[in-house]
C-alpha cells in the first residue's frame, strides 16, 4: 500500500463532501422552483413570480458554487485514481460522459435563459426554462448515482485480457437495481434540503414580521412538499437501501449497525459507542429484535455480525461508518417528526402563528445538509475495503506516480480555496435573504447596510 493512499482518499472525501453541499440544494430548489412557477402560471398571481425570482437568485449563486466545485470531481478520477480509471473507465466513463452530454448542456443552456430571459421568453416559455433546468439537474443526479451504484454493485461487465473491465450491457448499467433505489433515496434527500431551506427562510420572515406574504408561501411549500419527502425518505427508499446492503454488502451492514456478533433476534442500536478492539458496543441503548425484523421481516431472524466475515472484508473505518449511519437515521427521524407536526398545525390553520414551530423550522435548515452528507459517508465507507465492490480494492486504485507530497499540496490548496468559497456563499445568500423577495418595497429586517445596491 502506497503512503499516498490515505491522502488520495482524504482528497476525494474532502472535495466531494464540500461539493455535495451545493447540488443537493440545487436539485431540491429546482423542484420547488417548478412548483412556484406552476402556481404562478395557474393562478396568474404575480406574487409567485416574485417568489420564484427570489429563489432563482439564490439558486444561481448556489448553482455557480456547484459547477465550480463539480469540475474537479470528474478530473480527480484521472488525476488521483488513475489505476481505477484505467481499469473501469470503459464502464463508468459512459455514465460520466452521458452526464456531460445529456444533462450539463441542458442545464447550463436553460439556466442562462431562466435567469436572464424571463421577459424574452414570456410566461409559458419561462416555465419551460424552469422545467428544463429541473430536468437537467435531476438527470445529472441519476447519471452520477448510476456511476456510484456500479461501484457499489458492479453489473454488465466482463474482464478483458489485461484485467481491464469492459462494458457488456448498456441498459443493464443504466438500470442497475441499486441505482434505482439509491437515486430515489438521494433525490428525496435533496428535496428535503430544498424544503427545509425554503421553510426556514419563510419562518425567518414570519418571525421577523417582514415579507410576511412571502414567508407564508415559503413555509407552506417547504412543509407540504417536505412532509411527503420526509416520509418517502424512510419508506420505501431508505428501507430498500438497507435491504440491498443486506443482500450485497453484508459486512458493511453489520458494521453500520455495530453488530459484532452474529445473532438471532438482532436489536437495533439507538445509541452506543463501538469498540472495535474489544469487538463490542459500549453503553448500548437498543430495541430488541428490530434489526432482524427490518432486514428480514421476521423478529427472530438470524443476522450476520462482523464475526461471520474475515477481517480483510471489514470496512476499514468502522466507527466513522457506524456514526455517519446513525446520524443520518437519527436526523431523518427528527425530520419526520418536525414535518408531520408542522403539517398538522397547517391543517389546523395555526402554523403561521405558532412561533415555537417557526423557530424549529428556521433552526432546522442546516440539518438536512448534515444528514445527506452522513448518508453519502455511509454509502462510501460501507463499500470499503472495495473501490468497486468485489472487483477492485481501494488500495489498488490510486495513481501510482502521484506521491503524498503532491497530493497534500493540492489538498491544502483546495482547503484554502473552498474556505473562501464557503464564506462568499454564506455572505451572498445571507444578503439575498436579507434583501428579500420584494425589491420594489424593501422591508426592514435589520438596519439596511449602506452598501446594498
Amino acid at each position, binding site marked *: 500500500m502506497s503512503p499516498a493512499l490515505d491522502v488520495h482518499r482524504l482528497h476525494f472525501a474532502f472535495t466531494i463532501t464540500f461539493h455535495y453541499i451545493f447540488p443537493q440544494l440545487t436539485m431540491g430548489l429546482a423542484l420547488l422552483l417548478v412548483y412556484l412557477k406552476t402556481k404562478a402560471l395557474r393562478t396568474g398571481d404575480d406574487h409567485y413570480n416574485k417568489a420564484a425570482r427570489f429563489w432563482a437568485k439564490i439558486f444561481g449563486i448556489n448553482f455557480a458554487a456547484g459547477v465550480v466545485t463539480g469540475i474537479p470531481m470528474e478530473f480527480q478520477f484521472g488525476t488521483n485514481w488513475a489505476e481505477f480509471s484505467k481499469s473501469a473507465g*470503459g464502464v463508468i466513463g459512459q455514465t460520466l460522459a*452521458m452526464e456531460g452530454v445529456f444533462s*450539463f*448542456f441542458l442545464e447550463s443552456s436553460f439556466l442562462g435563459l431562466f435567469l436572464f*430571459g*424571463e421577459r424574452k421568453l414570456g410566461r409559458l416559455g419561462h416555465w419551460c426554462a424552469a422545467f428544463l433546468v429541473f430536468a437537467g439537474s435531476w438527470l445529472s443526479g441519476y447519471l452520477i448515482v448510476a456511476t456510484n451504484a456500479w461501484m457499489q454493485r458492479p453489473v454488465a461487465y466482463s474482464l478483458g485480457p489485461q484485467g481491464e473491465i469492459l462494458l457488456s450491457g448498456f441498459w443493464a448499467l443504466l438500470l442497475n437495481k441499486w441505482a434505482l433505489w439509491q437515486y430515489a433515496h438521494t433525490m428525496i434527500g435533496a428535496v428535503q434540503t430544498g424544503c427545509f431551506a425554503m421553510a426556514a427562510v419563510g419562518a425567518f420572515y414570519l418571525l421577523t414580521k417582514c415579507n410576511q406574504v412571502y414567508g407564508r408561501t415559503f413555509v407552506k411549500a417547504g412543509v407540504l412538499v417536505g412532509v411527503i419527502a420526509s416520509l418517502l425518505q424512510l419508506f420505501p427508499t431508505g428501507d430498500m437501501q438497507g435491504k440491498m446492503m443486506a443482500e450485497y454488502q453484508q459486512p458493511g451492514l453489520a458494521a453500520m449497525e455495530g453488530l459484532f456478533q452474529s445473532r438471532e433476534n438482532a436489536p437495533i442500536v439507538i445509541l452506543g459507542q463501538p469498540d472495535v478492539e474489544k469487538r463490542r458496543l459500549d453503553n448500548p441503548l437498543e430495541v430488541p429484535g428490530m434489526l432482524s425484523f427490518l432486514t428480514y421481516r421476521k423478529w427472530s431472524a438470524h443476522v450476520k455480525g462482523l464475526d461471520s466475515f474475515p477481517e480483510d472484508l471489514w470496512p476499514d473505518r468502522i466507527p466513522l461508518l457506524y456514526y455517519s449511519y446513525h446520524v443520518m437515521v437519527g436526523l431523518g427521524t427528527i425530520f419526520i417528526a418536525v414535518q408531520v407536526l408542522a403539517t398538522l398545525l397547517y391543517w389546523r390553520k395555526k402554523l403561521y402563528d405558532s412561533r415555537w414551530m417557526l423557530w424549529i423550522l428556521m433552526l432546522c435548515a442546516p440539518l438536512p445538509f448534515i444528514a445527506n452528507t452522513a448518508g453519502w459517508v455511509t454509502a462510501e465507507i460501507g463499500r470499503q475495503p472495495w473501490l468497486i465492490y468485489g472487483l477492485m480494492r481501494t488500495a489498488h486504485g490510486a495513481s501510482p506516480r502521484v506521491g503524498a507530497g503532491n497530493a497534500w499540496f*493540492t489538498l491544502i490548496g483546495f482547503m484554502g480555496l473552498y474556505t473562501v468559497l464557503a464564506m462568499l456563499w454564506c455572505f451572498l445568500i445571507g444578503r439575498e435573504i436579507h434583501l428579500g423577495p420584494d425589491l420594489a418595497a424593501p422591508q426592514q429586517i435589520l438596519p439596511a447596510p449602506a452598501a446594498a445596491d
Partner: protein
Amino acid sequence: MGTVWFWLVAVMITEKVLLDGFDLGAGAIHLLVARTDAERREVLASIGPVWDGNEVWLLAAGGTLYFAFPPLYASAFSGFYLPLMIVLWLLILRGISIEFRNHVHSLVWDPLWDFLFCASSFLLAIFYSAALGNVVRGVPLDASGYFFEPLWTNFRLGAETGILDWYTILVGVLGLAALVMHGSLWVKMKTDGAVNKRAGGIASTAFWMVAALTAVVTLLSFRVQPQIARNLAKWPVGYLFPALAVVGMIGVKVFLARQHERNAFLSSCAYLSGMLTSVVFGVYPMVLPARDRTYSLTVDSAQAGAYGLKVGLAWWTIGMLLATGYSVFVYRSFAGKVKLDAYEHGHGD
C-alpha cells in the same frame, strides 16, 4: 472504431476551444478593453449567459475521452497532475468572478472580481496551450504506461521534461495571443462604442503576434515532433488542416479591415480549428506521444472495449444533436449587441 473516437474527441476539444476560447480571451483582455464599471459589465454581459455552457464542452470532452480511451485518461491526468489542479483552481476563481460580481456593487467588490477574472483567464489560456504543447512534444512515459511531470525541470527538451520548457512556453504564448485575438473579435462583435473600438485595436495588434508566433511554432514543431512530417508525407490530404488555419488568418485580416465583425470572428474560428486539427492529424495514430517513442499511447493501445465504443456512438450522436440544438437556441436568444439594461433587469420587475 478507435480512430472514429479519436476524431470525435478532437472535434469536441476544437469545439471547446472555439467557444470557451472567446470567453477566456474576453477575460484576458477584460481590464484592457473596458475601463469603466459600465464597460466592464458590458464585457461580462457579452459572455454571461453562455460561458457556463461553453465550459460544459470541457466536461463533455473529458468524459468522452474517459470512456473511449481509459488508459489515456488515467495516464495523462495523473501525469499532468499539478498543471491540471492549477487549472481547476483557476476555473473555480474564474467561475465565481463572473457569477458573483454582479450580485453586489461596491468600490471594493467590483475591482476585485474584475482583476481575478482577468488574471485567471490570462493564466488559463497559457496553461491550456502549454498542455497542448506537452502533447505535441511528448511526455516521459515508460513501460508502466504512466509518467509524472513536475511543473518545470531545466526548461530543456531532454529526457526529464517538465510541463514548462522553452517549447511549451512558446506554445503557451501563442495560445494566449490566439485567444486574445479570438476574444477581442467576440467582444467587438457584441459591443458598441468605446469597447468596440478598443477591442478592434487589440485584435489588430494580436493578429500580428499570432501570425509571427504561428510561423515560428510551426517550424519548431516539425523538429520537436517528427511524426507530423511523416503523416503529411503519408496522407497529403492533411495539408488541408494548416491551409484552413492560413485561410482563417487571412480572413481575420481582411474582414477586420472591412469592419465585418461577424466574419472576422468566424475566420478566427477557422484559424483555431485549423491549428488544432493540424496538431491532432500530426500526432495520429498516437494519442499521447512519449519521449521514448516505443512507450507512446496509440489509438489501438488506449481504446476501450468494442461494445462500449459502439453503444457510445449511438447515444453520443443523439446527445450532440440535442446539445447543438440548445446552443443554437441560446445563442439566438442572446444574439446581437449587448444591451446592458436588458441584461440587468431581465426579470422584468
